[in-house]
């Protein structure tokens, strides 16, 4: 009930914000910030006060929606979704803060879209009816596309179109798989069902499940993204406004990983095990290819975008080893990457606001005029290449340890990606903050300081005391 209320509140707040901006200029950002903070608190209180620890999936509500297809509005929560939703809240607030001065046109409508995207993302993480899941999967897509297409940079329409077509076509494959599984349930048990918990009980022969699994896998691999279907990501990231990039890298990519865990691996364990070598190969190629492409980029945001592909490769590799340690690593990597890439994109936005360029050639020597910004940039770059003491290190370490137990060759190859990440991290930092000064820029303002330091604090906290997250995500594994 509370969760449905939260999503509805986000939708309503979006409308209110939109109207309010027309009446009082400048009210939209404050209202969005307050709404998000309030709802995040409501969510925290709800989770805390619930008398279970959410190690198992807790079904919260189940209401009939479309009777013809036996589709219900059913939502549930477990630790995995709690972790990811918490990340969403944090990054949502960061998003509002980074858009504070960046968005100047159609401000009200912008925040409407932002709030709607967040409502959709939360919906994705809690839906346990597959139809509902698909519904939210698309609901988060539409406003996100609007954010890229309306407030993005010079090539925004192309990027938004590419993003949308990639996701939509792949999700149609998933829709076919969803329908097919639903009807398979009908032939097996005599009742059509799209309910996740019903599907878990389904006995699928491998000959059927391998195709069904593939339908889901492609949709999530596009979102993650993994190598042959990654090409939308650099464009979308580069062209999106800062908040769009933060949200894309921070949370939207995670929905792909979430889908892989919840729907691919848990629903089709046999088929996934059979598919694991291919998935692991794709993952390793993603890791190395992403890192290689990253240090060849001249565009700050494009560089970070390619590094995302590399990091998400670690997640996929870890997930398809089916070991406890690797799972832990994958989940920590998800959170850590969400924080660190969000931080780097936020930095890119701050630099863009000052010098109106994303090109690394136009940057250099920022350290002299903006030492605080430089310090943060160094820390975030360090996080991206897995510096011990920061969260990413824990994630990558656990992933690799887990992978090594099962597929040692893959682990060794994947470790090469770490070298690549050190190179692109240093390239990024050196070409923007060191060398001869090309611009005098203003150092971080109070608002920007809050953004950077809160993200760094989270990264440090998880990096130094990983039990915070390891203990929490343990229940996901069986």
């Amino acid at each position, binding site marked *: 009930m509370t969760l449905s209320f939260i999503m509805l509140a986000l939708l309503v707040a979006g409308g209110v914000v939109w109207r309010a901006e027309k009446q009082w200029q400048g009210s939209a950002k404050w209202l969005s910030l307050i709404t998000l903070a309030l709802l995040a608190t409501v969510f925290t209180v709800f989770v805390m006060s619930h008398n279970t620890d959410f190690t198992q999936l807790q079904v919260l509500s189940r209401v009939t929606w479309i*009777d*013809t297809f036996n589709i219900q509005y059913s939502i549930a929560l477990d630790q995995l979704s709690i972790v990811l939703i918490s990340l969403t809240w944090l990054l949502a607030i960061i998003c509002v803060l980074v858009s504070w001065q960046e968005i100047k046109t*159609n401000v009200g409508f912008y925040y409407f879209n932002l709030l709607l995207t967040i409502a959709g993302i939360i919906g994705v993480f809690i839906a346990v009816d597959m*139809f509902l899941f698909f519904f939210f999967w*698309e609901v988060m897509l539409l406003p996100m596309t609007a954010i890229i297409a*309306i407030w993005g940079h010079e090539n925004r329409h192309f990027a938004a179109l590419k993003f949308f077509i990639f996701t939509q076509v792949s999700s149609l494959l998933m829709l076919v798989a969803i*329908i097919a599984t639903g009807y398979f349930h009908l032939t097996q048990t005599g009742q059509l069902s799209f309910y996740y918990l019903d599907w878990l009980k389904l006995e699928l022969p491998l000959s059927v499940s391998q195709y069904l699994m593939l339908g889901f896998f492609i949709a999530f691999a596009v979102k993650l993204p993994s190598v042959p279907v990654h090409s939308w990501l650099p464009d979308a990231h580069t062209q999106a406004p800062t908040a769009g990039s933060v949200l894309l890298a921070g949370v939207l990519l995670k929905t792909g990983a979430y889908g892989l865990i919840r729907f691919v691996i848990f629903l089709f364990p046999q088929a996934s095990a059979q598919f694991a070598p291919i998935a692991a190969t794709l993952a390793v190629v993603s890791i190395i290819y992403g890192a290689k492409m990253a240090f060849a980029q001249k565009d700050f945001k494009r560089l970070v975008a390619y590094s995302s592909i590399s990091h998400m490769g670690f997640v996929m590799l870890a997930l398809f080893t089916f070991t406890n340690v690797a799972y832990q690593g994958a989940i920590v990597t998800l959170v850590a990457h969400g924080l660190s890439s969000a931080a780097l994109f936020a930095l890119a936005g701050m630099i863009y606001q000052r010098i109106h360029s994303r090109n690394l050639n136009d940057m250099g020597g920022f350290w002299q005029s903006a030492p605080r910004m430089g310090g943060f940039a160094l820390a975030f770059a360090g996080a991206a290449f897995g510096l011990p003491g920061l969260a990413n290190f824990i994630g990558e370490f656990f992933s690799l340890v887990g992978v090594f137990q099962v597929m040692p060759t893959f682990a060794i190859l994947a470790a090469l990606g770490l070298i690549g990440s050190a190179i692109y991290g240093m390239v990024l930092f050196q070409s923007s903050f060191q060398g001869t000064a090309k611009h005098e820029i203003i150092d971080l303002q109070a608002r920007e300081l809050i953004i950077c330091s809160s993200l760094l604090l989270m990264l440090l906290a998880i990096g130094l005391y990983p039990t915070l997250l390891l203990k929490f995500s343990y229940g996901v594994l069986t």
Partner: protein
Amino acid sequence: MMMPVADNTPAFLTMAMAGAILPQLIIAFGIALALLLVAWRRSQRTIALFTGVVIVMALLANISLLVTPAIQVTQLLKVDGYSTFAFSLILISALVALPMSHKFLSAQIEVHDEYYLLLLLMVLGAGVLVTSDHYASLFLGFELLSISLVGLVGYQRESQYSVESGFKYLILSASASSFMLLGIAFIYSVSGDMSFSAVISKTIYNQPDLGVFFQLGLLLFVSGVAFKLSVAPFHFWTPDVYQGSPTPVTMLLATISKIAMFVVLLKCFAAQQYLLLENVQQFLLIFAITSMLLGNVMALKQQNLKRLFAYSSIAHMGYLLIVLIVTSEQNLAFTWQSVLFYLAAYTVANLSVFIVIELLQQQLTTQQADITLSDIKGLFWRAPSYALLMILAILSLAGIPLTMGFIGKFYILSQATIAHAWWLIAALIVGSGIGLAYYLPLIFKLFSAESSPDQNVKISVKNIVEKVLVYSLVGVSLVFGIFPEVINQLINT
């Protein structure tokens, strides 16, 4: 109710039967009265109002029929829940097109009574089509629909396209109906019965000479219908005629004529089990796949909005054909449900799109015949309600959740998945992917910030009828998109 007293022979037309075709009777009677009205007083307002009243009455009568059981009305017609639902869709489309037509016609000095007569005739033709249970009534309805449409398509005499599109439609429509007539004759020569419910023994299909003859007849019949549905390869007239006719007529063409033809095709096929014939299936398969791909690809580069939606309608008929191909005897009820739901979604979306086009056309200051992509630039900031309606319609056509179009697509995919028709699914996915490449830029155009200086005027919706139309269509597409169960229930009763 009147009961035949002491007479055991079944009456030719009982009151119950008359009640079942009451909506059609109301329309027919309305046409006669409208003719008298023209003789009495020629006024644009009066005739428009009168037509509106007739359609509303027919709609009310029709809605009351939704709960009554199926009934055979003479040999020619059969009224059941499906045909009633389809006729409701047709009447609603006519009702939406009416104020648009009135607005368009009142811009001229002449009094155009005949336009409304043609509109009513067309609705009657569609009403006969959806209820027909016999090739004779099918042909009757088909001709009524076609001939009145020819008049409507070429109605705007002073427009540069009117003669071209009118003639194109007339000639092609006439040849299509002659194809169809020949096909019906072939079918009749083999089966000896023109009724849809006639039982034809399965062995006929496989006889060496008669079977070929029969299948040739079927092919001719299907191509006649396919022409009307603008299914590839019978689609060539569509973009030109869509572009050349007045926008309210395009609206009718895109909705009423498609609904009626598809419903009658399914009715005929379902009753006679042509679906099980492999050859027919193969033809339909080719039609469907070429329509889906060709329609979407051709729409990509269109600048003219009406042409764009013409091609998109070709693709949509291709999607809908999938249902017809994969259906089987066991799930006929589900097939009907899918088809009617998809048609409802398609109708609402097309009505919305063409309303916006017509309203924009009226706003144009210059004497410009067509609405192109550049005319809708930045519409969202100038006229939010129009743009919202357009966006919802486009999303619905693209099959994105929150809209009826998505549920329609869900129906089609379910049908195809049950039947394991993977090739059709693949074509549908590819087609939808290509479709997005023109639907989405349309939406981006609506949002684009820059617009030419003369378009910077804010458009405000003044007319109360237009306001009601726009907002109610927005409401309908949202409500039924989120709660499709309401329509499912309506179809099922």
